[in-house]
């Protein structure tokens, strides 16, 4: 996986989610009484939602097409933040699947910033991009680490051994009149305490262990496969899928370079087929909850298309300057010191909006 491919895959999924946010906001808003929508909610709806999304897509396209365009990336991230806030005001909860892609773009920017501070004026775009790509991969893992630590913080190690909570989640998402082989499997899992405990244990290990994505290509491929299995299982059992995140796991982690090189026409055909299949499935879906599967297909197709774009290379010296380890230690130490201060200063983490209107006892 080249650094440029990581940037373009991220840009493709980010653009898709920018466009999807006002669309999803409108579908959720249609379930609400218009008088319940406050002024901020309207930034995610027609016309402002689409104006913002178009501006964000323009920025993210510029980010995709040339290395080192961090200002465009930061602008697109800010626009996505405004759209998400509007979405939260409509639905009462944020759309966390899109937070995952935002986190990955944050990771790219953070990596770029750390590299710029470390290399200083001697930095080449190639070096900055390499560290930024590492930052994006790390942030992909960080999302799962945060999810796993949240479970440990809330429920302790009993989260991993309890035989009931995964099964309760499955039951709440299972159609009561479903039939067929898939439902038979779901029912068998719901009936088995051992299956519930094993699924809980494996989920927690895979999430907390996702820091392994930073450890190199082989470990990343292995843990990426585990994360994809986790998402596939969750999707099969509950219909829940973080589609963009799953596409980026596949794009960042799997060893695509080991596949035999396909002719360009075949790759164009595959990308178009994925996007078309996803678009048809999305257009014919009755529920918002049916959309993650089609979105996964569209996202995969867009990534495949983005990888077809030629990579613009900077005219730079072939030999990158050596990294100044002293500067890197200062930058890393300063960042850790800032985080320690943040950790020690008493703060009130902003709750999920839903927590503010639903008593904890009823969740």
């Amino acid at each position, binding site marked *: 996986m080249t650094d440029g491919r990581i940037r373009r895959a991220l840009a493709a999924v980010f653009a898709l989610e920018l466009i999807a946010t006002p669309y999803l906001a409108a579908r959720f808003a249609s379930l609400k009484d218009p008088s319940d929508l406050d002024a901020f909610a309207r930034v995610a709806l027609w016309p402002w939602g689409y104006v913002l999304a178009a501006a964000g897509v323009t920025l993210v396209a510029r980010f995709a097409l040339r290395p080192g365009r961090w200002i465009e990336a930061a602008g697109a991230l800010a626009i996505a*933040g405004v759209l998400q806030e509007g979405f939260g005001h409509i639905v009462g909860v944020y759309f966390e699947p899109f937070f995952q892609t935002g986190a990955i773009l944050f990771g790219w920017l953070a990596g770029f910033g750390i590299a710029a501070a470390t290399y200083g004026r001697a930095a080449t775009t190639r070096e900055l991009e390499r560290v930024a790509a590492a930052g994006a991969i*790390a942030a992909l893992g960080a999302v799962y680490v945060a999810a796993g630590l949240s479970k440990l913080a809330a429920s302790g190690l009993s989260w991993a051994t309890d035989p009931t909570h995964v099964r309760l989640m499955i039951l*709440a998402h299972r159609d009561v009149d479903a039939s067929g082989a898939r439902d038979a499997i779901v029912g068998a899992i719901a009936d088995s305490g051992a299956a519930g405990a094993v699924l809980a244990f494996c989920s927690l290990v895979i999430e907390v262990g996702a820091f392994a994505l930073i450890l190199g290509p082989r470990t990343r491929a292995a843990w990426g496969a585990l994360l994809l299995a986790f998402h596939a299982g969750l999707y099969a059992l509950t219909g829940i899928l973080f589609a963009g995140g799953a596409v980026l796991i596949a794009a960042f982690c799997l060893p695509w370079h080991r596949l035999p090189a396909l002719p360009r026409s075949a790759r164009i055909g595959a990308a178009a087929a994925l996007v078309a299949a996803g678009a048809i499935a999305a257009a014919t879906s009755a529920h918002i909850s049916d959309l993650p599967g089609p979105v996964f297909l569209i996202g995969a197709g867009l990534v495949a298309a983005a990888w077809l774009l030629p990579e613009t290379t900077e005219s730079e010296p072939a030999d990158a300057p050596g990294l100044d380890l002293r500067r890197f230690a200062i930058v890393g130490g300063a960042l850790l010191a800032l985080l320690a201060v943040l950790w020690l200063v008493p703060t009130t983490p902003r709750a999920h909006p839903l927590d503010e209107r639903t008593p904890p006892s009823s969740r």
Partner: protein
Amino acid sequence: MDDRARDITTAVGALIVITYVVIAFEIGERYPFARFRMFQDLPDASSRVIARDPSGDVREVARYVAWQCPAIDDLRFDGPEQPCPTAGSYPELDQRTAGWVRDHAAGAGSAPGEQIDIVRRTYYFPNRWGPPSHHDCVVTTCTASRHDD
């Protein structure tokens, strides 16, 4: 990539994992930071809003259309003042179900369908390692018609 370059990217990766997790835990849900807290608690029960016909057969609410319910325009299954306990409920599922009923309300002059109880089915485990049990609580009584009638 040489070993030192790989060490540096690993170190930067570790810094970014720590940065994201610390900020997410300290500031909460502020884009792009989140703790991704879904399913973090250990509930004793979970529930789903479904439809029950007079013979006691249950189906998904989305199998019915032409709904006629009391105060259908204000119908919701999440939030406060619910007639049934909402322990372990998933508000997004409840919102979607209520939205289906409102969006598929009977038109003016429509013939009433069959009587349908909208019930909240709550799942729980009498024995933690055994199969689930459930109990049903009627949320409201409506009339509606099957999709495939």
